[in-house]
């Protein structure tokens, strides 16, 4: 079913200003260009998987393990972060990853268009104004990306996880203030309690508007949210075992859930969901055998919580969530062994501890299974992981909050880049989230095709030019000389150690001898190794000499241009 078409609200689209439409219009590829690579999986790959269980990992802890953990948990670990993690213990690193940073200040106005507040002040508590909606939405999207870029804990990745899970589309919601409230809700519970998050999302104004909960009344219940709640947000859709029976829920359950949720609307003044008793269906709602034939009597304003509690009482809800977490952090293939060794016990833990997320993440990310060599380097980076990771790992200097116009312009530019790569923060393609996270058998391979891969390379190439990219007067550029200079001189002066230093940060697994020789030739075409040492030493002795700096910079850029376009750099 084409959910997007179903969810479109033509009236609001037609009345929206042109700027708002262009801001939100997802990029569409020219006709005739593939959107799914012809080389992507036709069936799930049957490469060998591991039998390792969730038993605590007790093997070696060093740079290799630290890098694997951080690559999967943050948007591109830097060299310093990798070194610090390798010098700590697994427990210490996980403690750090699970400690979310302080709540960020809300997004601010950076446009003269929005006259409700001064530049630099937040617009999130101001009255709705359609004329300001476009610039506010850009501000929200920029701010959101900025937070992901600067956050080195698990919160950032889980924030995106929940966005992809409890999906809304800013374009459909049409009120950036709602969008901010939704984003803040996801962030605050990113490492918290899933059940509570589900309850809060259910009556969040953005969700009430996105899935039509605000139109659901006793006389005309709207099934949209009730259906997605079951099919996509909680128990998931099982095999069809009878008419209208999807194993985990039935069509009648969808209708019953919809009636539970009647009476809720969104308030544009308070930016909250609110309950109206007169619109609520007060009859008892009967659920099917999938829910042990439970019934929910009238519970008024808290009835939706009873429904969520009932759904989260199902073991399949925990399993559905854990499978999604597994695919987010490990790999998309879940074979019978993994289901039995990893998914089932992890789901049991999640359910037993009342759906607190942090202990479950800790179990998975500290397990023998997670650190099994077979799970290293097999994760194709999403556009956000690729782009933010590139910026972080290459240590591209970013503007600060002392110039918010500049800062937001740069974040806005990054949103443009990831949009072109087919991942636009705030606007997943539909309520199911980005297909790379669920579409079998391709999964993550959906990110890479003949259109999107060159766009990734164009990003790294642009940052590798001698002038970089300038946005709002701020220059974004990879400075490979500074990067190399931050290494111990014994490393930076030896071309092979230097290449290894780059590889250790950028590549998810060691390269072959042939590949390293190839990279050596990219750095030193036709020259012996000592000439690098010579030229680098000469530069270090005269670091303000432009000619000597340019001499080594040209070579380092050539090396990085090759490295960043290697297939390996697409993997995590």
């Amino acid at each position: 079913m084409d959910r997007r078409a179903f969810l479109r609200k033509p009236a609001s689209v037609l009345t929206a200003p042109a700027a708002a439409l262009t801001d939100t219009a997802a990029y569409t590829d020219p006709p005739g260009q593939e959107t799914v690579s012809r080389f992507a999986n036709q069936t799930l790959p049957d490469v060998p998987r591991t039998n390792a269980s969730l038993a605590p990992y007790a093997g070696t802890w060093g740079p290799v393990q630290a890098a694997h953990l951080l690559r999967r948990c943050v948007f591109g670990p830097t060299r310093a972060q990798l070194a610090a993690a390798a010098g700590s213990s697994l427990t210490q690193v996980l403690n750090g990853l699970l400690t979310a940073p302080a709540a960020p200040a809300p997004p601010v106005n950076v446009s003269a268009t929005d006259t409700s507040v001064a530049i630099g002040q937040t617009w999130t508590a101001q009255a709705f104004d359609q004329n300001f909606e476009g610039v506010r939405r850009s501000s929200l999207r920029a701010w959101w990306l900025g937070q992901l870029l600067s956050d080195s804990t698990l919160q950032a990745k889980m924030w995106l996880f929940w966005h992809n899970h409890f999906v809304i589309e800013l374009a459909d919601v049409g009120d950036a203030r709602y969008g901010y409230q939704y984003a803040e809700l996801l962030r605050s519970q990113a490492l918290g309690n899933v059940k509570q998050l589900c309850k809060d999302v259910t009556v969040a104004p953005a969700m009430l508007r996105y899935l039509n909960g605000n139109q659901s009344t006793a006389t005309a219940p709207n099934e949209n949210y009730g259906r997605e709640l079951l099919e996509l947000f909680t128990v998931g859709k099982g095999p069809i075992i009878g008419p209208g029976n999807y194993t985990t829920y039935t069509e009648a359950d969808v209708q019953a859930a919809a009636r539970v949720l009647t009476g809720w609307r969104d308030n544009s003044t308070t930016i909250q969901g609110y309950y109206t008793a007169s619109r609520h269906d007060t009859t008892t709602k009967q659920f099917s055998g999938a829910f042990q034939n439970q019934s929910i009597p009238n519970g008024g304003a808290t009835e939706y919580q009873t429904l969520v509690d009932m759904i989260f009482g199902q073991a399949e809800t925990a399993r559905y969530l854990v499978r999604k977490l597994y695919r987010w952090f490990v790999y998309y293939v879940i074979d019978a062994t993994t289901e039995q060794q990893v998914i089932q016990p992890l789901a049991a833990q999640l359910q037993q501890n009342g759906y607190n997320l942090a202990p479950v993440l800790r179990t998975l990310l500290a397990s023998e299974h997670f650190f099994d060599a077979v799970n290293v380097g097999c994760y194709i980076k999403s556009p956000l992981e690729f782009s933010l990771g590139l910026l972080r790992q290459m240590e591209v200097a970013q503007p600060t909050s002392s110039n918010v116009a500049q800062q937001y312009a740069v974040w806005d530019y990054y949103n443009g880049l990831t949009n072109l790569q087919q991942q636009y923060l705030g606007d997943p393609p539909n309520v199911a989230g980005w297909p790379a996270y669920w579409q079998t058998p391709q999964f993550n391979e959906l990110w890479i095709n003949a259109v999107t891969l060159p766009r990734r390379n164009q990003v790294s190439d642009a940052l590798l030019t001698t002038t970089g990219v300038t946005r709002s007067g701020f220059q974004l550029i990879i400075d490979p000389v500074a990067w190399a200079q931050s290494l111990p001189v014994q490393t930076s002066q030896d071309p092979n150690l230097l290449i290894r230093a780059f590889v250790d940060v950028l590549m998810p697994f060691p390269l072959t001898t042939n590949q390293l020789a190839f990279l050596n030739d990219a750095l030193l075409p036709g020259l012996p190794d000592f000439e690098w040492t010579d030229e680098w030493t000469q530069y270090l002795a005269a670091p303000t000499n432009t000619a000597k700096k340019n001499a080594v910079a040209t070579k380092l850029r050539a090396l990085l241009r090759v490295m960043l376009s290697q297939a390996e750099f697409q993997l995590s």
Partner: protein
Amino acid sequence: MKRREFIQTAAAGAVLPVLMNGFPVAAYGQDNAVLAALVNATTQTDRVLVLVQLNGGNDGLNMVIPLDQYSGLMTARPDIAIPQAQVLPMTQLTGLHPAMTGLKSLYDNGSVGVVQSVGYPNPNFSHFRATDIWTSASDSNVTWTTGWAGRYLDGEFPGFPTGYPSTQNPDPLAITVGSVVSNCVQGPTVNMGMAIASTSSFYQLLTGTVDTAPNTPAGHELTFIRQVVQQTQVYTAALQRAARAATNLSPLWPTAGQNSLADQLKIVAQLIAGGLQTRIYCVSLGGFDTHALQVPATGSTATGTHATLLGRVSQAIEAFQDDLRRLGVQDRVVGMTFSEFGRRIKANSGKGTDHGAAAPLFVFGTSVNPRIHGQNVQVPLNAGVNDNVPMQFDFRSIYASILQDWFAVPTATLTALFGRTFPYVPVLRPGVLTGTVAAEDVNVPGFSVYPNPVRGRATVAFEAGGAHVQARLFDATGREVQLVVDRVLPRGPQRLPLDAAGLAAGTYYCHVQEGPRISTRLVVVE
């Protein structure tokens, strides 16, 4: 040349583009702005330029050997000088390294020209910086981020890569066989060329295979991405089509893996013959950084590392020319060699040579002027450790002259590409017959510096022909210390003052060039 006449006629009649044997016919001539304008500023041409980069700094003094300088040579480099009897003589005065029999034979057949002592004022001895200078064609003291051929292609194909490949331009504008796309073809925003990462990857490209990866989840995804990487090479189909359309024919190609330059040029020959419209190919051979043991520790100095390298250059170019001839495309191709610098006149104690300045280069192909441009290096009788070969020709003179003659680039465009004008050097054949040319054609007549040794002031005297004249004074390391004149001088005897009062005592070279004529004199300042 017949083509030239033909195209001039055709241009006059405004019948363009003209096809001859299925190929568009190139403009040939120095200033065919009319033709360029007719094709909307983009020149129609089927001509190909092959740039052969010798990485590391090639010891030119052991490659193109001044037979009249042996006493100086034997003093400066007794451990590594080639025995005079083994030098392959090109003229009475100049010969080739004995490993270069292939090039010698091409020279004898009129397909190789030599340009003596090519460099630039104020040479840089850093490999990286000197390579950047040679590939960007900048002055020694400024940094340009674009390549000279890239700027040329950018002007010819505006907007690249947006809208490419297209029906009109279906093929890569430039191809590098090597791990990194050559900086020669770096354009203002993007590199104008594509790299065929290695000779083996070229054949993978043709067969559609990728490197094998392990049978793991990571290997599975790696293979997938590599397949897409290969697919996104927009020119794959064009390369496959060209490769299918032609097969190498020369028996002179060495076995694959024996001579990497030959392996690269073999691909170039195949693609040219297969009809690829690519204008510029970049190939390279490394290993010329011969600080130690460029000749064997014991045994003949005509063998060893440098001999092997020069032998590969010679063998590769000979096979290339033979293949082009058999494939019937030899008249469409010219090539030139270059290296970031030459090496010091004096050998070091390790039977090697250190980073130097000017060096000779080869131009090859049926269209080159098969002669030796310039004069032998004048080797001081007691060369010091820092003494360098002074330049006779600015390398940008060679680039500009090739662009002008081979690709019909107008003078104004050349000035824009190189920042200013450089004297024209006829490295391509405007009708000159095979063989050596009379001395009066290459020397500046009546050139002398007097008094010599100089105390304070001296006079530079010569006969001017009425064209642009450059007269410079270089010190022994090749650094330009004085620009005596750089402008058009009237025909007739010239007497220019040389002020040596501020110069340290020592050996200098005074170098005068007017068009193709070049002369150098050793000047001693007391």
